[in-house]
């Protein structure tokens, strides 16, 4: 084993092996199994061999395009919000946090709190019978609870976005803050400053081009999560249209076994869309960063 670990070519693979095994067996295995079962006929349906009927009925579902749009809208909007607000917060924290360490701690507070807790909090705050509604009512701004603007179960999914923002801004922010504080970034900023770049010029021409590639990988995680998470949309989303994960969850738990292959087909479709989106976004973002630096 010792000699194996000393082999320069072998060592990285050996060190990667445990992680690759877990990813390969669990994620790969799950995808393969889902793929196989999504094309297998349901017992008792009379069909034999492989069938694409689950995909056919799924794609024929008129709800699917609207759900797909809603899910993409949610994932994209929440990712953009998290990136923009996260970087802005990190820039602000870098300015002041040298003096007040507690501010950074407060900023990170949402990180260990589960999403479900956040969702319940959003419900209690933003719902039509929530705290803000009651405050508005007693202040005489609205006549009754029903005239409070729909921020939860609404078509724009503001409640969901609020919850995602609350949770993901610190996530992006903490990574951005670490990047901003690295000597690589601060020294390049000093070099730019010495060459005559003012504060906004430094931000645009030096800080962002250096920080964005790192933030991009976090943005991918945020996007993939927002795209695939079902508990927050289930709690805070409108009943129609549903997001894709909620749709898949409902079919998984459907009383009819016939819905099972459809749920798996939908899950695979989601995975494909998410991967395609991430690949596209990375390409566009990389090119933009390169162009921006010019």
């Amino acid at each position, binding site marked *: 084993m010792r000699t194996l670990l000393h082999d320069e070519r072998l060592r990285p693979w050996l060190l990667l092996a445990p992680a690759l095994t877990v990813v390969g067996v669990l994620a790969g295995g799950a995808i393969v199994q889902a793929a196989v079962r999504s094309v297998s006929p349901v017992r008792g349906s009379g069909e034999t061999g492989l069938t694409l009927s689950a995909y056919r009925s799924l794609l024929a579902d008129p709800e699917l395009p609207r759900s797909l749009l809603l899910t993409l809208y949610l994932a994209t909007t929440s990712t953009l919000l998290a990136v923009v607000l996260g970087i802005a917060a990190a820039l602000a924290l870098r300015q002041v946090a040298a003096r007040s360490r507690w501010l950074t701690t407060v900023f990170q507070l949402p990180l260990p709190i589960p999403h479900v807790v956040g969702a319940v909090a959003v419900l209690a705050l933003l719902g039509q019978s929530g705290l803000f509604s009651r405050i508005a009512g007693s202040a005489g701004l609205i006549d009754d609870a029903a005239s409070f603007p729909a921020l939860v179960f609404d078509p724009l999914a503001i409640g969901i976005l609020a919850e995602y923002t609350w949770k993901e801004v610190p996530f992006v922010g903490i990574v951005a803050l670490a990047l901003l504080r690295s000597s690589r970034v601060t020294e390049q900023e000093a070099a730019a400053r010495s*060459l005559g770049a003012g504060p906004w010029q430094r931000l645009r021409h030096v800080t962002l081009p250096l920080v964005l590639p790192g933030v991009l990988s976090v943005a991918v995680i945020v996007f993939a999560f927002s795209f695939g998470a079902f508990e927050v949309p289930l709690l805070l989303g409108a009943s129609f249209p549903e997001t894709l994960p909620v749709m898949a969850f409902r079919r998984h738990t459907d009383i009819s076994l016939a819905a099972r292959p459809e749920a798996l087909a939908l899950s695979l479709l989601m995975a494909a869309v998410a991967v395609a989106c991430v690949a596209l976004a990375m390409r566009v973002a990389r090119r933009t960063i390169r162009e921006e630096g010019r």
Partner: protein
Amino acid sequence: MTAITLTSLTKRYGTITAVDDVDLTLPDGEITALLGPSGCGKTTTLKLIGGLLTPTAGTVAFDGIDQRDVRAEHRGAVMVFQDHLLFPYLSVGDNVAFGLRMRGVGARQRRRQAEEMLARVGLPDTADRHPDELSGGQRQRVALARALVVEPRVLLLDEPLASLDPHLRDGMRELILDIQREEQVTTVVVTHDQEEAAVLADRVAIMFDGRIAQVGTARELHDRPADAEVARFLGSPNLLPGVRSGRIVETAAGALEVPHGTAQDGPVLVTIRPEAIVVAPASGPNILAGRVRDARDLGARVQVTVAVGDTQLTLVTRPDALRALLPGSDVRIRLPADALWAMPAPDPAAELAFRQDVVEGVAPVDAGTRTQGAADADR
């Protein structure tokens, strides 16, 4: 054209004083070197001049105008950092044009000026390359071009040669000197290498512990160090403690006539450059009788260690003298009075601290042999 005046310049970080009450004038159009060991505050001073740091106390003035309220980006004092700090997401040409872009110069003219400047630093036709494709020496040249293209009032160079291989240093040094001669831009060079300071700078300011210990030409510093610390830092191997009484200093090696340096009677430290000591003189004052301890052939010259009683003296002489200087043989040496220099004796506390540094291997004890060792290692 800018003369720089530092007045009581101080920078503190908590309880640590990085720059301690520095008064220094850097003449217009000259190269001044800030020379000192690492951690002596020389780079901090450079950043204070450039406005990248704000002084705790004191002022930086350009041509008599206090720069307190002038931001770094408006000072026109451009710093070239030790590890070049080229922007990794920009081409070489765009790196050089960066400062022009910040000043709103149009794309065409930026490109033209960047290419001109790249040609001047010896890197024509590299504008479209990526910094990663260049060698360390080339990147340092690009960093210099990037600074020069904005026509700075003041050029601040932080260890410009330290990150370069020895064979690249000469070229970079010549380039800096050539450009400086043409542009006459007031330049401050930070370095820990006394030879670099001597070759590059018109004047050298030696710094220890945030204070300026001595300012002068390299020759003045070398021949007439202000104190024992400066002498030791510059690698002076011959330091003789003694007691002055009039023109005569009584040392363990004997009585010496020392007309120059500290004139006050009492304890002093006497120094002499190895090359000033004369071997086997016929007669004259300041002659000492000793025994050759060691003689090393350094090629162009011979370095000889002579013991006079308990005192060791290092001298450098021509190779043809080697045969007469076999270890163990008796030798007479003369310390010419004009080459001897008396300094105030260091206070005992500083002396103790120095000895501890020597034990820990921080301070150079005998820079002559040390440099020799380093040269051997390089070969």
